[in-house]
């Protein structure tokens, strides 16, 4: 505790002492109350008799009282006041009526009423303090002691009180309270614990900090007046050395001499500093002040300072240790100042191939490739401008042999107190091998890019082979397609092969599945890494003998659709790393190949279809031509025979008898039938051949034409019920279709009045036509035979037996259907549909 603070406390204590004296005086005065009560009792008795006797002798009683005396009735009306009271309040009740309620200060009225109720209940009240208003509006503090006046039946009839002016007393009290409050709040807020005891070791004053330090679970106020003579002993266990604490306190109290800066260690390790100040009044000992202060932090700081001094040697050891680590780590470390290297370690020397001194003669720039320097400078700028303290980036360093190492470089900036850069510590990690992994990713990326737009299986395979061969450091790399149906593998890309030879895929390189490692992988779907092929009896020499082989399947839906295979003349050429990479490539290839294969199959099929179509067209054409040639060859003799018969008849006119002439006529009829047959067969066989382009055909016109061509007997009429539609196709075929049906209807009509009705119904996707007659009808057992070739139900000169077959074939051509409804003797209806 500083001397200054002590002075303040002492001054406050002095003030307090003065106030206390004043207070003590008041307390002494208060003992006068007892005499007042005596007086009251006296006046009480007098009053009783006064009220009873209604004598005026009371005056004398009032005069005998030094303080103000007031008598009021039960309603608060003032009945009597003595001279003191009259002059105090300023009212003369002889001249004006007065109620106590006029006297009480308005703010205190509630309290006054309550007190009056208490008076009524208990019959007496003492030390009722309140403010009153005098007639000239002065506020005065008064103390009233009073009692109730009852009649003989014990019924209250009034009250009397002695009134004392305590205004000045109250002011002094307030002052004391204020100063006490100030002091206590000061003490309470001290960061030191304070304990003021009187000469009997009763607590005069203490503060919350005191309670806090010594774990006293009450507020400091409540400790006032408590006898603390035994406190040291009772609280000894709070201290690390209880016995010493108690004996020290005892000895201090005995000596009554000021003790400053005693260090006390608490049981919990905290350290307190204690001062003891005796309070003397003249030579008289009046008590003492204890102050306690927590100095734990200060102490620890001091201790750590001391410890640091001791550590200096330890730091030296640590430094050496660090140096060992620095020189043995695999991370290159360089200490730089203003870009110059001032320190470096073995790892860095190994990395770049320069000696320690060589490196120390360099700046960072000397080790940096010109093209990387720009990005490095950007970071440096950030350090100076943005005040960042470390950054990490990937950069290359020049090696002594001119090659590059790839590193992850971490730069840490060390700044002095003014935030200026003192030096930089750079950690350099060799990531060249990591970079190789990146290269693999690049390989895959490049591959992806190069095969992205390609759909041709051979192109894709070529790209893969070219990309991989370089990566695998070999010139033997092949991609096979696996054909599980034919049990073969087909080479579709061979590294180097197409460079000499432009013809891409060599189909004769089929390698039967089941032989060789490729075939084995094709079957198993599991990658193989053969370190020494001479020890693997599956190995088959393909182009030349190789000692290591790596074979990875291109899998699709669990089966190998292709194989990536590579060989190398040396043993142990391929690594597990290679295998992993190839598997990645294979899975990439799988996606592309799957699409490509399906495209390829699709194209193959398309090509086959195209060829087939062409073949079909040609053969159709040829067939058609052939039919014509045949029909010509068949028809020519018929013409010759007819001519010859005709000539014989003319040349021998009148010489031939009737029988011979009949036979000649039969020959001519037979020739005609033969001619018709040949024509019909020719037509039938040429229905499929599209001789002319499809056009919109107006069937109404077709029907008109037919009516003109056909011989229609007079007894037969043809009706077209609904207008016929336009339909797309070959006119000759529609004509043949209707002509055959109508001529049949005419041919097989036996009725007096023959009727042929042609109608059409339109459907969503087709037309349904009907040709209805009232002819002889067809027995149901023949219904399914009528469309058969050469089947004529009624042999006739004009019927070849092919007519309905032609009808059926034309309907089929236009994807329609044909059926018959018929009843013998009543008629037949042919229904057929034609696609729109």
């Amino acid at each position, binding site marked *: 505790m500083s001397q200054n603070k002590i002075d303040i406390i002492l001054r406050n204590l002095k003030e307090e002492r003065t106030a206390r004296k004043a207070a003590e005086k008041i307390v002494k005065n208060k003992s006068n109350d007892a005499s007042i009560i005596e007086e009251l009792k006296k006046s009480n008795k007098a009053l009783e008799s006064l009220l009873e006797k209604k004598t005026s002798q009371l005056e004398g009683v009032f005069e005998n009282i030094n303080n103000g005396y007031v008598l009021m009735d039960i309603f608060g009306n003032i009945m009597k006041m003595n001279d003191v009271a009259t002059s105090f309040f300023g009212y003369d009740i002889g001249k004006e009526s007065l109620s106590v309620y006029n006297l009480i200060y308005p703010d205190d009225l509630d309290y006054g009423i309550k007190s009056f109720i208490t008076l009524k209940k208990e019959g007496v009240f003492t030390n009722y303090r309140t403010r009153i208003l005098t007639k000239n509006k002065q506020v005065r503090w008064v103390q009233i002691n009073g009692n109730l006046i009852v009649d003989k039946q014990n019924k209250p009839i009034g009250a009397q009180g002695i009134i004392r002016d305590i205004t000045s007393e109250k002011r002094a009290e307030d002052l004391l309270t204020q100063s006490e409050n100030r002091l206590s709040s000061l003490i309470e807020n001290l960061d030191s614990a304070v304990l003021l005891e009187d000469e009997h070791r009763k607590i005069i004053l203490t503060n919350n900090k005191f309670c806090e330090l010594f774990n006293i679970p009450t507020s400091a106020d409540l400790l006032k007046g408590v006898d603390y003579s035994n406190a040291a002993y009772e609280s000894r266990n709070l201290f690390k050395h209880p016995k010493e604490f108690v004996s020290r306190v005892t000895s201090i109290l005995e000596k009554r001499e000021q003790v400053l800066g005693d260090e006390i260690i608490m049981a919990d390790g905290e350290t307190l500093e204690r001062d003891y100040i005796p309070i003397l009044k003249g030579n008289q000992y009046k008590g003492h002040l204890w102050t306690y202060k927590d100095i734990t932090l200060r102490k620890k700081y001091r201790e750590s300072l001391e410890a640091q001094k001791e550590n200096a040697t330890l730091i030296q050891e640590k430094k050496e240790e660090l140096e060992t680590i620095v020189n043995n780590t695999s991370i290159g470390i360089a200490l730089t100042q203003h870009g110059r290297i001032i320190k470096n370690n073995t790892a860095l020397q190994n990395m770049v191939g320069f000696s320690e001194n060589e490196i120390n003669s360099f700046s960072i720039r000397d080790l940096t490739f010109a093209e990387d320097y720009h990005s490095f400078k950007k970071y440096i700028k950030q350090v100076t401008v943005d005040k960042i303290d470390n950054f990490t980036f990937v950069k290359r360093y020049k090696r002594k042999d001119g090659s590059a190492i790839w590193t992850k470089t971490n730069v840490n900036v060390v700044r002095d107190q003014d935030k200026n850069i003192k030096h930089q510590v750079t950690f350099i990690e060799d990531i060249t091998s990591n970079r190789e992994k990146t290269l693999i990713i690049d390989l895959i990326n490049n591959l992806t890019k190069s095969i992205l737009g390609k759909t041709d299986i051979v192109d894709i395979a070529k790209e893969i082979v070219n990309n991989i061969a370089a990566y695998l450091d070999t010139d033997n790399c092949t991609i096979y397609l696996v054909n599980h149906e034919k049990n073969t593998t087909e080479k579709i890309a061979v590294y180097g092969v197409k460079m000499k030879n432009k013809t891409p895929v060599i189909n004769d390189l089929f390698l039967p599945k089941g032989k060789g490692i490729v075939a084995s992988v094709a079957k198993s779907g599991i990658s193989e890494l053969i370190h020494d092929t001479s020890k693997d009896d599956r190995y088959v020499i393909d182009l030349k003998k190789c000692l290591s082989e790596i074979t990875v399947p291109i899998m699709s839906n669990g089966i190998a659709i292709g194989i990536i295979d590579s060989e190398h003349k040396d043993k142990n050429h391929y690594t597990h790393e290679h295998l992993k990479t190839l598997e990645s490539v294979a899975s990439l290839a799988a996606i592309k190949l799957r699409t490509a294969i399906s495209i390829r199959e699709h194209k193959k099929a398309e090509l086959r279809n195209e060829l087939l179509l062409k073949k079909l067209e040609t053969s159709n054409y040829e067939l058609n*031509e052939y039919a014509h040639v045949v029909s010509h060859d068949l028809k*020519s003799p018929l013409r010759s025979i007819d001519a010859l018969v005709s000539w014989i008849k003319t040349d021998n006119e009148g010489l031939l008898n009737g029988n011979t002439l009949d036979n000649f006529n039969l020959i001519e009829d037979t020739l005609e039938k033969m001619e018709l047959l040949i024509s019909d067969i020719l037509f039938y066989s040429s229905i499929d051949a599209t001789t002319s382009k499809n056009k919109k055909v107006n069937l109404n016109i077709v029907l008109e034409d037919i009516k003109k061509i056909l011989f229609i007997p007079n007894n037969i009429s043809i009706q077209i019920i609904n207008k016929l539609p336009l339909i797309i196709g070959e006119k000759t075929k529609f004509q043949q279709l209707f002509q055959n049906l109508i001529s049949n209807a005419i041919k097989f009509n036996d009725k007096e009045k023959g009727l042929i009705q042609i109608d059409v119904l339109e459907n969503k996707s087709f037309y349904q036509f009907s040709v209805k007659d009232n002819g002889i009808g067809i027995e149901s057992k023949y219904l399914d035979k009528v469309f058969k070739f050469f089947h004529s139900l009624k042999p006739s000169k004009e019927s070849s037996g092919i007519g309905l077959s032609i009808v059926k074939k034309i309907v089929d051509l236009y994807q329609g259907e044909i059926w018959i409804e018929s009843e013998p003797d009543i008629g037949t209806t042919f229904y057929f549909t034609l696609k729109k």
Partner: protein
Amino acid sequence: MKKKLNILLIEDNIIEVMKMDRTVSLLKLKHKITKAVTADKAFELLNETESYPDIILLDLNMPKMSGIEFLSSLKSNDNLKHIPTIILTTSDNENDLKKCYKIGISGYILKPLKYEDYVKKIEVVLSYWCINELKKY
């Protein structure tokens, strides 16, 4: 029927040739009919003679060189292509018909089955060509 036509008939079928001869004599026509049994023979005749026929009657279905092949050669020969050529055939093959018209013909007559019909057709054809103005040599 005053005009006398110089006709080249190219026909391999002997009966067909007879039919033509008989028809011409039946109709009492004075036309001169030269016959060639094959297309090759016809070219020989055309190259030998100094006066070209007025019209050619050509059968299509013939062994060796077909009628259409003969027609193509004829029409690509500047000296001969002017000669009106009428096809006389049993083939009602549409392809043949189209091809012939494309190369260039002056008529396409189908041989009917009945001899009487044949006579009627030939009479019409020949009388038609009789009233045509033909190139003189």
